[in-house]
């Protein structure tokens, strides 16, 4: 129950193709996140699953039942797809109380009164809004409105949950709280969940599996760990991680890669290659020393940004900027000298032509 299958989905608005031949499978009970920059086609994909948009081509199956097929002429309207959708704007009906918002659809389904009352009570308990049943949405805070939207969904007990950037209208602190409660919701309802966001932290913290989309195509899919550690291409490498990955382009020469100001020794299987290469290394994977060490690269500090638990340090090797991330609250005067080192197994290598990862590092 709750499997989603998309096959060869194409969607365009006018001449602009926003989803290009998308194949996707979501297993029962899985939490899948579609992550991508705005305009990458992720929300359109979600809305096509819900039935709010109609694909130009392809097929969509929910629970082995075809709900859309261009070839077989099947279009099941959203009303009959029986799934739950949380909107970015919450979409609470402003003229109805919280209780009415939650129970409207239940009443339309001709569910018995006692059952409706039970579900309402239960849903309000789950989102900790007991006692708010008679309020109007405008009398609630943003976070509470969000929880009403969740409660409305809980009461319907759908097997499939779709969430369209549900946290993007909340402030940072509330977002962290709601993230945890959405994860709890998924666990308690054991519903298949598709979550759309442009926020990589949400994607990494919530998901069983992440799909990264760009310009209507899937760039990579995998576990949050894989996406972070083994980016399939430069787009994913740059998109994931904050502060962003360091990328150096250079020429392979004598077992090393020579960039303008730095040299990085290559592992053996790359040492024999020829031509140009892009090296990627995450800021926290670069070793740092305050004292000179043999073979380490000397750098000069620029802006230092302590964030509390960590500190982002911008340094320069000659003219090449490098970002470092260190544990702890570090203060250093500008123009201090530091020495850094790159470990083989923390590096990713990309082909400058195809942008593809040449060897996923083994992290």
């Amino acid at each position, binding site marked *: 129950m709750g499997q989603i299958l998309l096959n060869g989905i194409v969607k365009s608005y006018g001449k602009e193709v926003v989803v290009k031949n998308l194949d996707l499978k979501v297993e029962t009970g899985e939490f899948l996140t579609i992550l991508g920059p705005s305009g990458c086609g992720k929300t359109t994909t979600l809305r096509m699953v*819900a*039935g*709010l948009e*109609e694909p130009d*081509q392809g097929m969509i199956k929910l629970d082995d039942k075809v709900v859309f097929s*261009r*070839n*077989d*002429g*099947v*279009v099941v*309207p*959203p*009303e*009959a*797809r*029986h*799934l*739950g*959708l949380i*909107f*970015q*704007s919450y*979409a*609470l*009906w*402003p*003229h109805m109380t919280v209780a009415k918002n939650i129970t*409207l*659809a239940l009443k*339309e*389904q001709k569910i018995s009164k006692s059952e409706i009352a039970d579900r309402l009570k239960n849903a309000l308990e789950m989102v900790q809004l007991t006692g708010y049943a008679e309020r109007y949405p405008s009398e609630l805070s943003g976070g509470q409105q969000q929880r009403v939207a969740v409660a*409305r969904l809980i009461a*319907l007990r759908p097997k499939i949950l779709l969430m369209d950037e549900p946290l993007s209208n909340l402030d940072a602190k509330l977002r962290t709280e709601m993230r945890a409660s959405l994860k709890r919701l998924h666990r308690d309802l054991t519903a298949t969940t598709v979550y759309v966001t442009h926020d990589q932290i949400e994607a990494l913290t919530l998901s069983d599996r992440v799909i990264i989309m760009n310009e209507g195509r899937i760039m990579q899919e995998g576990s949050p760990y894989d996406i972070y550690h083994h980016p399939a291409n430069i787009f994913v490498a740059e998109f994931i991680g904050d502060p962003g990955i360091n990328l150096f382009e250079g020429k392979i020469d004598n077992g090393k890669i020579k960039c303008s100001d730095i040299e990085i020794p290559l592992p053996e299987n790359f040492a024999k290659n020829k031509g140009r290469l892009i090296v990627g290394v995450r800021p926290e994977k670069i070793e740092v020393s305050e004292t000179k060490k043999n073979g380490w690269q000397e750098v000069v500090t620029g802006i230092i940004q302590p964030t509390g638990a960590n500190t982002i340090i911008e340094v320069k090797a000659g003219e090449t900027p490098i970002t470092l991330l260190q544990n702890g609250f570090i203060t250093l005067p500008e123009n201090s000298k530091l020495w850094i080192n790159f470990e083989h197994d923390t590096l990713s290598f990309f082909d400058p032509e195809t942008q593809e990862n040449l060897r996923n590092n083994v992290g």
Partner: protein
Amino acid sequence: MWVKFMAISAGNNKPKFWSIRNIFYQSYRLKNRPELVIGLVALCFLSFVVLVPLLQIIKDALTFQSYDLAYEPDGVVGEFTLFHLDRVFNQPISAALFYKPLLNSLKMGFAVTVIALSVGFCLAWLMVRTNVYFKGIFGGMLVIPYMMPSWVMAIAWLSLFKNDRIGGSEGLLTYLTGVQAPDWVAYGFFPIVITLALHYYAYAYLLISGALATVDSELEEAGATSGMGKWKRIRVITMPLLMPAIGSAIVLTFIRILGTFGTPALLGLPVRFFTFSTQIYASINARNQGDAFVLALVLIVLAISFIWINSRIIGVRKSYVTMTGKGFRKSESDLGKMRWPVTVLLILFLCITVAMPLILLLWESLTLIPGDYSLSNLTTYFWKGQGDVSLAYGEPGIIHNKGILGALLNSIKLGFAAAIFNGILGLLVGYAVVRGRGDRLSKWLESIAFAPYIFPSIALGAIYIGMFSTSIGPIPALYGTFTILILITVIKNLPFTSRTGIAAILQIHQSLEEAARVQGIGWFRRMLRIIIPLSMSGLVAGMLLTFITAMRELSLIILLISPGNMVLTGLIFSYQEQDMAQHSSAVTLALVLIIITISVIVRVMSRSAGVGRLNVT
């Protein structure tokens, strides 16, 4: 067979358009998109009631009709002919039939537009840009003439200046001074222009004050700091910014005046001063419908070309009318010593345009013998008399008069029916247009809903006579029925109500409906539980305005009313034609009071609903 068909075409990526599967698929899609279904139905309906009638009268104007046989015994009914065009444009009779009324209409249109616009502009400037006293009260009072039927002023004018030319009683002027008002004061071009201008200034005032309020004073102050004098600032900065509003005020006023019937009929017909609208009326009455159709078509062509010229001149400039939104500030200039005199002038103006006509109507309705305005002649007979054969052909007073009460009931029924149908149609058109944005259907629907705007009222009436005087398929001949009054009122108000509907639906974020959709709530329930409750306030205000417009309408329906479907405005006109001044004054006053009461309710409601200035758009 079906299975086989499926198997064969399974390999194809795109089914052919006319294949059975594709038709199934398309009908599935249609079910999935209620806005398309509504849009299609609305488009068909509107084409039938707007475009088909237009084509119908073009056809009628170019073919022989049975009533033409008196002039052309050789003609074959239904055959193509230029007979009507020839008669209207190219015969000795054309001067009286076409050229004189055209000239009169244009002269009247220009004169009224110039006066109404100048007055409206001055008032708008005073109210928005100066510190004149009692702005709140004036703001409400200034638009009262606009709420009243446009010909109320004409009836008041007659009470004041009627002379002995057409027999019957004389006006207040003659009674007080013994002097007969000369013909040119009592009837014809001059009084028509004055009384219409005193009605339409309110329209110009509403449009211009709305635009003036959005011009940021800082733009003018920027001019001042670069050394421009006051008049130069107005000429160089303010006026260009106001041009689009003034342009559309000119065109819309002009079109309305071309189509207006009541005033030119009341003040023009006694001296055989014909305008387009009264000539159309006369032709229809003389059973020369073909002439009327040609005249109506010319009127529509005139209206369209004015709109076109306006959009050519102003359209390009519209782009730089900037409403800054932020940092917006408007300054009021101090009238100084002139503050009180200007205020007094305004009060005087309001006395003449608002208070005086109403007082004259009241007085007239209270005189026993017409023309005698002395206190001893006052009576309440025309309000509550039982009907005395020696007075006014034995017509009873208002509250005992079955004819008047019946017409009042019809007017209210017409208002209600128009309001309800307009509300529903406006909502559905708004829904289909907004939800279908981007589709061609949406654009077509929006344009066709706007089309009745360019038909001058009297021309639309003529079109409907042409269309509905015989039965069309299952639809019986509607001429003379109450249905046709409702239909034409709904159609004429559609541009306004569909805009209200569009604005109302635009305010409801799409996701509110989608949330219900995903939760399994069907289209009808969504409309009932979500769309209608959320758009209610705007819709109700719009519907009440439709109600008022329907109650005061004369030009639109004058050609379509008969004793069987008489409404108040038509009754007033016939009383006036029979020179029963007290009855017409009493009924007019009653009508005006009803309209003003409802208008006040609308104002209060639309203010609380946050839909200001609905009556302008």
